């Protein structure tokens, strides 16, 4: 009996979707568009996040010391800096500085050859990276302490302060905007799906009434609609995913010429997370469909 019931209920769900295709197809398309927009913003948000992270990782400030600075002084500053949260200070010895200099391809070979191990005017220094650009002000405070002043040859933060602050503000804004847009589109997707399915079910309340009056048990009335909702959601999600992949590959071909040097590989990101994104979209679609059906049914099916 349970087998007959499952068979009949699934058949009802599938047959109803097909018989109501003039209603199903537009519903699927509307849900697809919102899922697609949601996907676009998730991917854009991801790109914005990773790009701003790489941008931030590229920012380091450096303290260079006079030759008069003793190793003790340098170590003292390094320690003080490392005590700050999210601050990493790496010691650059004369040899390290030389090796760095030698590896710089932007300087002519002849110039590079001028400096040798025996004749090395390059200063010792501390290279400072912070996990959060906001920590740089704390770094500045420590470096500015009176006791270090006579030994410091150069503190690169001063030159780049404005630029760093701008980058910091910009990345923060981008992250916030991406999060807000993604949230908005998730909410929009839920609302649109809910409304679309609600309308599809509303137009069939006569059928629901008949089912009730002929003594259909609750599962016969409700479950076929859940199945329909799931079918809507899953087909919409599949189409949205295809559309997303197509647009990403198109975006790649366009962006390559516009943003040279920046890694805006939307297609690559999508492909490297292919199954996660696909699964997530399908799951979101199916759940959204079932959830919307359940809510609409509750509204229109008085038992």
């Amino acid at each position, binding site marked *: *009996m349970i087998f*007959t*019931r499952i068979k*009949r209920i699934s058949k009802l769900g599938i047959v109803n979707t097909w*018989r109501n295709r003039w209603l199903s197809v537009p519903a699927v398309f509307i849900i697809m568009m919102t899922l697609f927009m949601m996907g676009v913003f998730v991917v854009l948000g991801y790109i914005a996040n990773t790009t701003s992270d790489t941008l931030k990782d590229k920012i380091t400030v450096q303290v260079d010391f006079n030759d008069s600075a003793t190793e003790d002084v340098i170590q003292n500053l390094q320690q003080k800096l490392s005590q700050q949260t999210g601050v990493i200070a790496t010691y650059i010895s004369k040899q390290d500085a030389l090796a760095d200099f030698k590896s710089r391809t932007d300087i002519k070979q002849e110039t590079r050859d001028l400096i040798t191990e025996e004749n090395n005017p390059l200063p010792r220094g501390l290279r400072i990276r912070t996990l959060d650009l906001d920590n740089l002000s704390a770094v500045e405070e420590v470096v500015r302490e009176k006791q270090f002043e006579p030994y410091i040859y150069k503190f690169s933060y001063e030159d780049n302060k404005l630029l760093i602050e701008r980058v910091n503000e910009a990345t923060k804004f981008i992250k916030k905007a991406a999060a807000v847009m993604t949230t908005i589109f998730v909410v929009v997707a839920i609302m649109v799906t809910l409304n679309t399915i609600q309308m599809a079910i509303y137009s069939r309340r*006569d*059928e629901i*009434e*008949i*089912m*009730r*009056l*002929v*003594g*259909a*048990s*609750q599962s*016969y009335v409700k479950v076929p609609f859940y199945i329909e909702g799931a079918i809507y959601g899953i087909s919409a999600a599949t189409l949205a995913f295809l559309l997303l992949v197509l647009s990403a590959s198109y975006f790649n071909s366009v962006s390559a010429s516009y943003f040279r040097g920046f890694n805006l590989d939307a297609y690559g990101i999508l492909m490297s997370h292919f199954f996660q994104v696909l699964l997530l979209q399908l799951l979101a679609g199916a759940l959204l469909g079932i959830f919307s059906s359940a809510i609409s049914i509750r509204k229109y099916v*008085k*038992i």
Partner: protein
Amino acid sequence: MNPGAIIQFLNVTKNYVKGKVTALNGVNLAIDKGEFIVLVGPSGAGKSTLIRLLVREELPSTGKIMVAGRDITRIKERDLPYYRRNVGIVFQDFKLLPNKTVYENVSYALELSDEPDAVIKDKVPRILRLVGLKERANNYPAELSGGERQRTSIARALVHNPKLLIADEPTGNLDEKNTAEVIDLLLRINEAGTIVLLATHDLDIVRSLKKRVICLNNGQLQLVSKGEDKK
């Protein structure tokens, strides 16, 4: 009180809009086994309310409704489908599913109540023969006359062998010939032992039937005629 009655309304009152509108006011009614009863009354007098209470689409504000010794106002939601299978109902507007054939409209009701396929295959043709629609089994409602549509909906109402068949203005949309057919069918169903409650305001029918007639007026019930077979 009538101890032999199958259906009893005991002092039933139904108010709408937070007590401002009284659709039924202290109604007492007993329907006997095998009875054919005609319910008349102007529109808005409470006929539909009485029917909705009887199929437990609504609950009375006060009072009890006993069906076969059971107070139906106390049936739990999940048991309602089982109760409703004992009550067949047909409407003025037929309420058939337009994208299902005559056969499917009838078999659907059985499918929805977990009847095995073998039972459905056996039962549906028999019922279609009873209502005279065997030849029309594969037609869609749009291809049928009004009378045929109403007979399809009666067939659907009968699949569960209900103890009570409620017909709410079943002939309201039908011409004279089709009306006669439908009434004749209802009488035959009643003769086979099913209680029939016919709501109508077609006075010709009321007069020709010679059954018990009750009238609802302003939410109150009056006996109009006892019926010839009940002297």
